């Protein structure tokens, strides 16, 4: 492991971010798990990625000025009727399926950032996701994801317990981290037992001795299984009478809530939520495919927040993002094609919520990106950087987003 960069040496600053750009990043050394029984004040970030490119303009739509006419003209059958939109402020209304989140917005627990996204010009899902999660738009030479680097740069994060969780599998953002545990629900964290499992596990560890990625990941998994063993089959009782909806996304969030409450040092969790690539039959008014996606999103997030609100809200920040927004004009299949600017949601105990952030570029032809899509006026890294700097307490953003200069402060946090 002589060439490897450990988190400690990284924190001492002996490694320039140029080394990362050159792809010298190698995985972390494996650490034995230990979990303190004490409740912790350490911050937690949950990143929800809506895969496929969500139609930001039908999530947060204009409700005043000339933009209303542009929006309606471009979307004769796909527009959300004005009277259905829940007003966030004078300019924008939110899709009614997000009502539970609208309530969190009214409680000032959720902020909206509009016209935000990747500053690089691409309408390819795969490229957009990769650039976004590597954190270096236009550059693919870096070999680690932005969350891996945030974790590396995070001086306060404990390496013990289950700091990194990916649902259902490790995204590019966590590339380069062998400490990630993937799961889809909490009950996945157990092995079926043919009758001799207690004798088999030590042998399994012997088989996976060594430093390969596969070995590190497998050992990490075994540690975590051991750690949660006594709790995995217990029935989970959410706080405050919350009942999670019975769908995949809510199960995912419930698993995160369970991990938070277990005090196993969760630091970063990612959740992939797919299905947003709505080229066809996107919505019928507020109903249809998009309505279902949004209503599940809102149900999951609000249950999660209410579940952890009393004990852990100060620690938790949730960011909801997508690789791009969609075209202003609908297509003939009652859908929308790949676009550019999007919308992000930031939710949590420390967020200065109840406000729409970002500079609104407008929807007139000459205001659109390439005369067809919502423009990007806020780099998505600005939002992530403010989250990292404030609640996550990582001062050195350059290590996470090499080459990115923060543009002032949106003011998402005090």
């Amino acid at each position, binding site marked *: 492991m002589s060439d490897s960069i450990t988190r400690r040496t990284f924190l001492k600053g002996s490694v320039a971010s140029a080394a990362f750009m050159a792809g010298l990043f190698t995985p972390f050394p494996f650490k034995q798990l230990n979990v303190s029984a004490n409740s912790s004040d350490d911050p937690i970030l949950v990143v929800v990625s809506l*895969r496929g490119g969500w139609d930001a303009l039908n999530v947060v739509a204009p409700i005043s000025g000339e933009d209303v006419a542009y929006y309606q003209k471009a979307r004769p059958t796909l527009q959300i009727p004005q009277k259905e939109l829940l007003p966030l402020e004078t300019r924008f209304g939110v899709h009614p399926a997000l009502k539970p989140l609208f309530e969190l917005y009214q409680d000032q627990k959720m902020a909206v950032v509009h016209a935000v996204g990747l500053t*690089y*010009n*691409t*309408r*390819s899902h*795969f*490229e957009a996701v990769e650039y976004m999660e590597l954190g270096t738009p236009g550059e693919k030479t870096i070999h680690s994801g932005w969350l891996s680097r945030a974790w590396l740069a995070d001086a306060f994060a404990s390496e013990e317990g289950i700091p990194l969780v*990916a649902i*259902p*599998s*490790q995204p590019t953002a966590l*590339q380069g981290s*062998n400490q*990630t*545990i*993937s*799961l*889809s629900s909490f*009950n*996945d*964290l*157990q*092995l*079926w*037992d*043919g*009758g*001799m499992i207690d*004798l*088999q596990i030590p*042998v*399994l560890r*012997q*088989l*996976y*001795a060594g430093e*390969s*990625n*596969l070995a590190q*990941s*497998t050992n*990490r*998994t075994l540690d*975590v*299984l051991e750690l949660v063993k006594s709790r995995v089959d217990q029935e989970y009782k959410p706080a405050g009478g919350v009942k999670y909806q019975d769908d995949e996304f809510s199960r995912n969030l419930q698993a995160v809530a369970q991990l938070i409450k277990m005090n196993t040092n969760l630091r970063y969790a990612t959740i992939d939520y*797919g*299905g947003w*690539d709505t*080229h*066809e039959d996107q919505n019928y008014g507020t109903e249809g495919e998009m309505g279902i996606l949004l209503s599940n999103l809102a149900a999951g997030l609000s249950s999660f927040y209410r579940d952890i609100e009393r004990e852990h809200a100060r620690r938790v920040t949730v960011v909801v993002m997508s690789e791009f927004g969609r075209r202003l*004009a*609908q*297509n*003939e*299949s009652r*859908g929308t*094609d*790949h676009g550019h600017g999007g919308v992000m949601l930031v939710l949590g105990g420390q967020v200065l919520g109840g406000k729409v952030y970002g500079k609104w570029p407008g929807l007139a032809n000459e205001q659109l990106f*390439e005369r067809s899509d919502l423009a990007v006026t806020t780099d998505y890294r600005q939002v992530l950087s403010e989250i990292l700097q404030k609640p996550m307490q990582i001062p050195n953003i350059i290590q996470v987003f090499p080459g990115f200069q923060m543009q002032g402060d949106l003011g998402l946090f005090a």
Partner: protein
Amino acid sequence: MDRREFLKTAGVLAAASTLAGCQTDSSTAPMAGNPFPTTVQSGSGGAKPSVTIPTTEQTKPVVNDLATLINNRLTFGVRPSEPLFSSTAGSTDDKILEDFLDRQLNPGSIDDSVFEERLQRAGFETLQKSFKDLAYEHITHNPYKNNDDRHWQWYIKPFYELIRATFLRAIYSRKQLQELLVDFWHNHFNVYGDQDDVSPLMLSYDRDVIREHVFGNFRQFLEAVATHPSMLTYLNNRTNSDAGPNENFARELLELHTMGAENYLGIQDPTSIEKDENGFVRGYIDNDVYEAARCFTGWRMNDDLWEGEEEVDDSLTFLYYQPWHDRYNKFILGLYIPADQSPQKDGRDVLDLLASHPGTATHIARKLCRRFVSDDPPQGLVERVARTFMQEKDSPEQLREVYKTLLLSQEFRESSGGKLKRPLEWAVSTMRALNVEMMQLPEGVYWTTFMMGQPLFGHHQPDGYPDKAEHWINSMSSIYGWNLITGLVENWWSDEEDGNNVRVDLLAQTPVEVSSATQLVDYWLERWQLQNLPAESRTALIQFTAGEAGVDTPLNAEELSEKIPALVTLILISPQFRYRG
């Protein structure tokens, strides 16, 4: 299937199987006509594994030889009862590989009657149905009423049978390379199988498109894909019309099916794109996506959905629909397409251009090399494979020639240890290694492969499952990989309510003279060609198997029935088994 329920049931079954363990002939009797081999030699009609198996005294790790590489890389893994090739003494590596490829790249020459018979006995009802019958009987004229449970069961039957037949082929067919290549192209031209209104047609997509063209010509392959209703539905081209083009198919055609993201230049001015000496543009830009979308307007299907289209019927077949076609001129990839060309000509011109573009050749070559050689294949090999792709572009045997260049290369031979199994390969190779007895795959096994991360025909995004190890090194794969192996060796899916069972009889596969811990470990390692297991791992396995007994002390029947499944589980989850040679 609910796992908690399974575990409850499984607990009972586990107890039952422990109780039954003393009996040598338990309820897991093999199905008629296909007894499990009682020893390693007797199962395969005389053909012996071609690899040199060291005796138990030679415990030093051996470097994988070519035969092991072929078994693991060009098949779904060792199936001890049925070696796919044999070599006579003195055969050179060249000869072994050439002979193997001669047969496997011309699968018509392979006697697969044992598998064919199994396929017959498995009792599939829909595999032979024509596209027309699938559409008519299972979609548009489903005999059951909407509110009848059988309506959905009948609708989904062809798709479920396709999944089960695919597993059966992967496990038992001797046409192993064909099955791997079919899997490659299913991922390349990915279609999510369980689509709202056309799932039954996936059976035809597999048979009439993927299998039909797997050894053929890429240009023809491309058009078969572009006009199949499974793809037309999946990437929405069935609603792509001049009134408001749907770009989904056009974009993925360029980005995934042909030139690849490596040749995507983003959003640029079309007049600024340079051309090479043969007149091919250096890459594609967003404008090419829009123009391609226009070229494919009107490539739809007979879905009789809209009012006032009297010429459209409900056969669900491909339909070129002139009224939806954008008739004006286009400019794509440096090519001018005049207005009012003959039917389908715009789209065909685009396919012609893409199939002959050097960027496509490189993209396909790189993906094939990644599949069969290493995650980051040598550029020199990629270029040679791409050259064959270009040279043979008009040949009806183009892809067969491409595979030959790839698999006869020195780089392929030197690629031992280069590929981690994806979950599907791990699952299938496990079932091959265990000599499972199965007709129709139990639902629970499919569900477990789903949890491992790779359900067959279950990838939602159009890019197919990723093919680099980093995507598959994760806790879910490991946990559910373990669970799958445990469920199989413990026979937890051997008595399913719907009669779809899988059975494993490990005792019957262990020769009577193999009874001490050392013998058992070495026997199973040799049987699966895992002699490269590190000495420490072997020792740990031997000590585990011996338990309180000595490592050379014969174990009694009860101990054997308890220890062998536990030992076999450990071997099948070992890192060495998780690599494709």
